[in-house]
């Protein structure tokens, strides 16, 4: 199995560097918070600025220690396989589809497609088995959320 080498090798540094970017962006927007004319010492900017600075300091510390750690040992993190990345990314993509489609084609149809495709992609069984399970699971959810809890789930029919 091929491994996702680059990310496995640098995931720690990438994450720490993302922290620095987040801290800088957060600090930038903290400065743009509108301050009322009359304000005591602790205005609305105080907390965000303090937190942004702490976050920045610890992100830099983490980046430095990650680089040092890698330099000190040649041992690599257990690599993730392409199948793992593909499966997780596929599921995340499917969840995004769910979020985007539910408003347009309704809860029932979106959920059916979601469960069916998920089971097919995870190689749970044949098409018919996956379809039967999808119908069963969605039917139970409909029963619980629409009938028992009375949640007005989005529907294709107005």
């Amino acid at each position, binding site marked *: 199995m091929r491994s996702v080498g680059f990310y496995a090798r640098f*995931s*720690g540094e990438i*994450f720490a560097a993302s*922290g620095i970017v*987040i801290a800088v962006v*957060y600090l930038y*927007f903290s400065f743009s*918070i*509108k*301050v*009322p004319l009359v*304000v*005591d*010492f*602790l*205005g*609305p900017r105080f*907390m*965000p600025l303090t*937190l*942004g600075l*702490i*976050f920045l300091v*610890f*992100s830099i*510390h*983490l980046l430095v*220690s990650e680089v040092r750690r890698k330099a000190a040992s040649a041992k690599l993190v257990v690599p*993730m*396989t392409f*199948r*793992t990345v593909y*499966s*997780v990314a596929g*599921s*995340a993509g499917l*969840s*995004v589809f*769910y*979020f985007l489609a*539910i*408003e347009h084609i309704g*809860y029932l149809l979106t*959920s059916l497609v*979601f*469960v069916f495709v*998920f*089971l097919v992609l*995870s190689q*749970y069984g044949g098409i018919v088995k996956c379809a039967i*399970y999808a119908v069963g*699971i*969605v039917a139970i*959810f409909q029963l619980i*959320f629409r009938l028992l*809890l009375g*949640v*007005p*789930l*989005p529907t294709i029919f107005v």
Partner: protein
Amino acid sequence: MEVLSNLQLGFAEVFTGYNFFFVIMGAFFGTWIGMLPGIGPATGIALLLPFTYDMDTTSALIMLGGIYFGAMYGGAISSVLINTPGDASAVMTAIDGNPLARKGRAGAALFICASASFVGGMLGLIGLTLMAVPLTEFALLFGPAEYFMMMVFAIVATSTLIEGSPAKGILSGVFGLMISTIGIDLQSSSARFTFGQPDLMDGINLLVVIIGLFCISEAFINIERFTTKTDQAPMPVGKLWITKAEWLRSRWALIRGAGIGFIVGLFPGAGGAVATAFAYAMEKRISPHPEEFGKGAIEGIAAPESANNASVSGALIPMLTLGIPGSASTAIMLGALMIYGIEPGPQLFQEHPKLVWGLISSLFVGNFVLLILNIPLIGLWVRLLKIPTEILTVIILLLALTGSYALQNSLADVGLVLVFGVLGYAMRKNDFPTVPMLLGVILGSMLEQSLRQALMLSVNDWTIFFTRPLCAGLLGLSVLCIFGPTIIAKLRRSVVGDPKV
């Protein structure tokens, strides 16, 4: 006597209306959830939280308490039968539980698990009952400065005591605090990080963070698990009994485990995983048969299981008396209280005695229910363990997505849940703990409010945080949590010598 009248009030609440039914439901679903590999008590509570949204607050909290306790019992079942702990706190049970099951004595292992959970749970609950009121009275003496420092300590301790790098823990906690700043600032009415979006004006819904961080990320982790499939069939259970000799060997381990679990549970961030590891290590050290540990020693199952359930009561003490959660599950329960519109803190016992004592009493009742449920229903649990991970994962995902929509009938919440889910997954893959982040989100606004109140009362005098004895003590403990591990490691290196040399 006050304790007895409080418990009487609580028991009356448990047997009012449908509450007893919710105790049974919580215990049953909690055991099931805790037993399923990959779904710990925190995920279980988070998944079922949307269902309690329209329930009476006391009933909802009673059910969540039942799930929490039940999940602690349940974790042991998968540890023993398939050597796959439901969550981190059940890992130690697998070390001796599974080898005993391999010897054809799974029933005996499960019996001692159930007994140890019961003893640990009961002793922990007695501790909780006795300590809750005095601690609450002490906490009522706290001013805003003490509260601020207490919250800082809780976040720092959770960030640094939890497994992994302290820097990562602190980053996670601070990130949670940063998220809590989104929305309208209550004091100045300034919009912070809302970018003109009306959905963000009230801040980010706590439940959205909980579901994303704990349920969606858990589902993604499960997906990884079944792509590298190592499923194991549950072992045959056999006789559900232990010998008299085994009982004599394990009786003190049960008591010691409960004591350790309860004390460790009191500390924010330490939780069941640390308590069980500590109890197991101690038992092995003092045992006259240390060579049997790891091969099915009965004390090796009894001590961690007892510690695990006693830690639940320990973790509930800071949550109920101070409004500071000690574990992921209590953090979610605290979040639930806030969602139901109840302000946590020492006033909770005075303002909502029925709720608090109802919860404590329901845990006593739940503990008995679990003992009764666990042993006869073991055949059912074994069958439920056979549910394929694929089906389980798609159910978690659909439940999380539908549940987040049901909160406010808003698709924006579904989108945010996905964002937090992906974030939680990325954090876990990079060994960033998610509990400090949740704690930051929960305590963020209270922390800012306490800081402002403290400075207002002291007329902007920052020395208030150093000169008041309790504040100074908590500040010292926070600093110790951050720098203590590094100092200890350096001292050890200077005494023992550098291992690399």
